[in-house]
């Protein structure tokens, strides 16, 4: 009996101490989590991937009705400007038809020249179409969540494209989900070139809507309206994917670029595997993809 009483007293004391220091313990636990995150990045990466995989079915359930609602709102807005839009499109169509003729002629010419020069084409790209099920956009991150993952062959470092141009690259891959890091994220650095002058540069995001261009050789040649495309250096992306256009070219190295991809209206994207995985190695020991990508072959 006495032993039991002693035990109860000790238990009570322990409980009082725990209650008194509960806050301190919780704070210490939070700091420990932060330290672990800093020390063991692989563990955190795996935890992130697990969390994404768990959350993505729920998000997908939310994403579909939200997408319908978004589209309905966009439709309503478009009704208002149908006439102007039509006129603009007709004009654009005329211009594009002219371009099409030019492109056909150039393609033919290119084919013939390649035949003459025995040019070997780079690896063919395959792509996977994915739905965006989540925005991971906060004050500190610019990214999105896709509903495709390792199972269909998505790998870290692959390019993510919209119809207009490059959106970002795959940062983390789960079994059935993946996280894209947009080019506008503060962690994004992209080797690019100015299409007109072939000048090489680095395109960096800073979490704002526009990108910052840092040229490797002076900024003298850059003008407003210059198109920026990937340069293929660093081995992550091939040459020539359109990224954006210069909207502001100052003389003090402050060249701002507007990305072609419209991040506020993304719904579907293409994850493209160009077969070039250079510097961007997978962070964790990911098992080899079990099957070939389910996407079609792109030309």
């Amino acid at each position, binding site marked *: 009996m006495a032993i039991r009483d002693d035990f109860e007293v000790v238990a009570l004391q322990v409980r009082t101490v725990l209650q008194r220091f509960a806050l301190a313990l919780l704070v210490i636990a939070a700091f420990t989590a932060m330290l672990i995150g800093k020390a063991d990045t692989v563990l*955190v990466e795996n935890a992130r991937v697990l969390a994404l995989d768990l959350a993505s079915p729920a998000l997908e359930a939310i994403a579909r009705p939200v997408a319908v609602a978004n589209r309905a709102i966009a439709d309503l807005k478009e009704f208002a400007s149908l006439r102007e839009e039509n006129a603009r499109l007709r004009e654009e169509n005329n211009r594009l038809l002219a371009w099409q003729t030019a492109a056909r002629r150039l393609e033919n010419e290119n084919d013939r020249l390649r035949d003459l020069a025995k040019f070997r084409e780079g690896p063919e790209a395959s792509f996977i179409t994915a739905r965006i099920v989540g925005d991971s956009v906060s004050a500190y991150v610019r990214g999105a969540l896709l509903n495709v993952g390792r199972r269909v062959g998505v790998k870290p470092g692959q390019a993510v494209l919209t119809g207009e141009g490059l959106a970002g690259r795959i940062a983390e891959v789960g079994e059935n989900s993946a996280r894209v890091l947009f080019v506008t994220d503060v962690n994004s650095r992209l080797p690019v070139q100015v299409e007109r002058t072939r000048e090489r540069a680095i395109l960096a995001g800073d979490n704002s809507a526009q990108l910052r261009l840092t040229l490797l050789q002076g900024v003298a040649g850059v003008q407003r309206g210059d198109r920026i495309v990937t340069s293929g250096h660093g081995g992550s992306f091939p040459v020539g994917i359109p990224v954006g256009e210069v909207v502001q070219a100052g003389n003090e190295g402050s060249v701002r670029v507007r990305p072609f991809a419209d991040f506020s209206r993304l719904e579907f994207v293409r994850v493209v595997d160009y077969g070039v995985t250079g510097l961007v190695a997978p962070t964790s020991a990911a098992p080899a993809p079990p099957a070939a990508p389910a996407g079609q072959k792109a030309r």
Partner: protein
Amino acid sequence: MRADGLLASLDRVGRFVLPGTVLLFFVVLTLAPLRVPYLADALPLLPTLVVFQFSLATPERLPGLLLLAMGVLLDLLLGGPGAPVGVSALGFVLIRAAVVSNRRYLVGVPFLFQWIGFCLLSWGFVALVWACTALWTWTAIDPTQAMMQYAIVIVIYPILGPLLARVRPRDPLNVPELSRGTAQPGETTT
């Protein structure tokens, strides 16, 4: 007299898990691709609002360990590469502690003062996350965006707060001590 039917126990369980479930919902909702112009920006701060409101209403149903887990989950879901994991957890725990220690005052005052309390605490939260993220990644992060989020969530509070606070008046013991008078917990009129 306590009813012990199936419905009653369901009701009790429901009440017990409600705050945690609502918090989990808002944590997952942070990632939802809502393209509503201003609301979408404020989504990452809505869990803070839930933590504040439920810490005020029923802190015993939102224990510190649960907040810790939810904070870590939020950081895992939201964070990009290199962002600290656990900073939201720290913020949540501190908000709960601050609310609980001032609860006696906060419960009895008009809504405006609760709003002011939320403004102060969530400002602390935003500042904490910003400072930690900046220190952790060792980059000067532009605080404009974080401040924008803060401003929006402050405006949202009067809309969402009372809605969440509806769990409070339904619980008979969870009324301010002043309005409870001399009644003790468990005491009923016969």
